[in-house]
């Protein structure tokens, strides 16, 4: 059964890269009764351990989300900004944004003749206040904001912001609660700063130094009208990554995940993403090299306020994570 309440909480929790405090607390509360050991490392990664004497296995899902950072508050009370993670100017216009303090703003543009040339320097946030003192007091350089959008679901799919990668967090939380009987020493890590360059995973991979690492993250799909040429689709099951721009999955890891999926009747599909990367990219080059792979959740409209994924795919991913932990 899909836990809509949990997903809604995860999606709505404020946590752009570098500001993961709230989401870390939320996840900690969810899993604290199920873990053998919970630590937070110097960069802020949340490390949840289920102890064992066998092989060290690392699962990661990043808890940060894309957002914007205020670079300048002008005299009239309008905010200029830069992106935190992959966001394009063209896709921002008109978006509602929300700050950590609950205040909101709308992304607007200067008067331009040619919208094709829209760049971030021509955009600003209007925080809907004519009171300059109020703006000055409540919005400061360095403040971050994220999309404001409503969670919505249908019989089989979910629409929400930050499914990248809160759905990965959802999967790991479920896996922790249903951790299988095993000798393996399993680390479930909720990483920080993935969206700005896989930074949390880099240090987590180094400190844990596992025998096997698997990242859980979203991937694009090829099933939308005139979309990218890609063989991944919603409802096609857990996606086992073959390659993206950060990693070529270790052949033995790919074979292991395929074997586990087939043995346990888990619906799966192979995935090649011709852009982007995941935590596994940073982990696999750590130390003497760490055999790594990725289990992906097929998701449409990545990095928008309306990311769409399929609930049955999530179930298949959870089964595959649990099978791998065992």
């Amino acid at each position, binding site marked *: 059964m899909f836990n809509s309440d949990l997903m809604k909480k995860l999606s709505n929790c404020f946590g752009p890269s570098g500001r993961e405090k709230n989401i870390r607390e939320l996840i900690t509360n969810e899993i604290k009764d199920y873990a053998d050991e919970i630590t937070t490392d110097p960069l802020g990664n949340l490390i949840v351990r289920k102890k064992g004497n066998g092989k060290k296995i690392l699962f990661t899902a990043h808890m940060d989300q894309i957002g914007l950072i205020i670079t300048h508050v002008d005299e009239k009370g309008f905010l200029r900004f830069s992106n935190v993670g992959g966001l394009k100017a063209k896709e921002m216009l008109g978006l509602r944004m929300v700050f950590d303090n609950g205040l909101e703003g709308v992304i607007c543009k200067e008067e331009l003749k040619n919208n094709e040339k829209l760049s971030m320097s021509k955009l600003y946030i209007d925080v809907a206040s004519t009171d300059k003192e109020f703006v000055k007091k409540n919005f400061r350089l360095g403040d971050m904001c994220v999309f404001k959008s409503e969670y919505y679901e249908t019989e089989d799919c979910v629409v929400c912001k930050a499914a990248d990668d809160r759905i990965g967090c959802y999967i790991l939380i479920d896996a922790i609660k249903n951790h299988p009987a095993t000798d393996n020493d399993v680390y479930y890590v909720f990483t920080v700063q993935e969206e700005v360059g896989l930074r949390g995973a880099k240090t987590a991979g180094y400190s844990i130094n596992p025998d096997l690492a698997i990242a859980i993250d979203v991937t694009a799909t090829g099933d939308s009208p005139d979309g990218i040429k*890609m063989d991944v689709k919603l409802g096609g099951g857990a996606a086992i990554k*073959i390659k993206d721009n*950060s990693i070529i999955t270790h052949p033995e890891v*790919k074979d292991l995940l395929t074997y586990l999926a087939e043995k346990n009747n888990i619906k799966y599909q192979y995935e090649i993403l011709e852009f982007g990367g995941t935590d596994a990219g940073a982990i696999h*080059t750590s130390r*003497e*090299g760490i055999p790594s792979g990725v289990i992906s959740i097929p998701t449409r409209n990545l990095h928008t306020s309306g990311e769409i994924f399929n609930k049955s795919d999530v179930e298949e991913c959870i089964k595959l994570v649990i099978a791998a932990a065992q």
Partner: protein
Amino acid sequence: MLKEFLFDICSEQFVAGFEHLNGHILTKYFEPYTDSLEKDNLGSYIFKAKGTNERKIMLAAHIDEIGLMVTKILEGGFLSFTSVGGINPASLVAQEVTIFGKENIFGVIGIKPPHVTSEEERKKPLKLKDLYIDTGYTKEEVEKIVKVGTIATVKREAIALQGSRISAKALDDRAGVAVMLETAKELKKISHKSNIYYTATVQEETGQRGAYASGYKINPDIAIVLEVGFGKTPDMPSHSPGLGKGPIVSYGGRFNPKLTKKFVEICKKYNYPMQYEVVPARTGTDAEALQINREGVPCILLSIPLRYMHTSVETVDLADIEITGKAIARFINELDNSDLEEILCF
């Protein structure tokens, strides 16, 4: 023997991420000159020749090559693909390919007839997503052999051109691996005190990923990176390095200036020809990963001049490989008899 090695190794596939399948060829050639073979967790081949002191010198050349990867099986049995590493789509048109599926099968990459290609279409640069592989099989037949993620390479036997030049696929960077083999042969003759690690690294073409792991594992005192450089052709800048004129010595932020200077001195002393290039910032070589390994590793970069990089007709001069291999052996010999700290000290 150098030519034999290159003909053998270039005709096999070592596509980035899939270098574990044909390692026996490397073993066959390196085993007589080295003491042990170890692999790191990402699969790089590390052949060690033991020395008599504690010093560790790493030679690194990447064994991986660029390749193709099937992304989708289309109606009619056509295969869409992406590249593993950087490929100019134009270089793939009208090529024959080998697909490494459940069994090896051949295919061709075609292009629309000129008669039905509009003026506008002709002006647009060709993209990988516009190309596909045709094996002759129907969709149902090809699905039994090929899956999403199956790799392919251009099918190309190495050929001897006139003189000492050869043309083959994947001379980037098998030419560098061949330099290591030449050095190994030479050092076996004149002996060495340092421990030498001949490292055939993996996944360089996708971001120097293998070198991170092997560098960490070996933890060398210095590293000599062997690559290929842009050889001169009529359409390249006039100052490009020429074939047959010796290794290209790189100057730039990635390389230890004193170690580089020492190598140049040795070349001059023994009358080995060489050429220079300046790479101020990113080099796109294993030196990227090795220089910042652990506490930092002094690196030098030597490149074999090569024409038509990242096509299936990469061309080198065997003389350059021989000279470079010998010069490195002399260089190591001199380092063995000097105080390395003094050389490296700024």
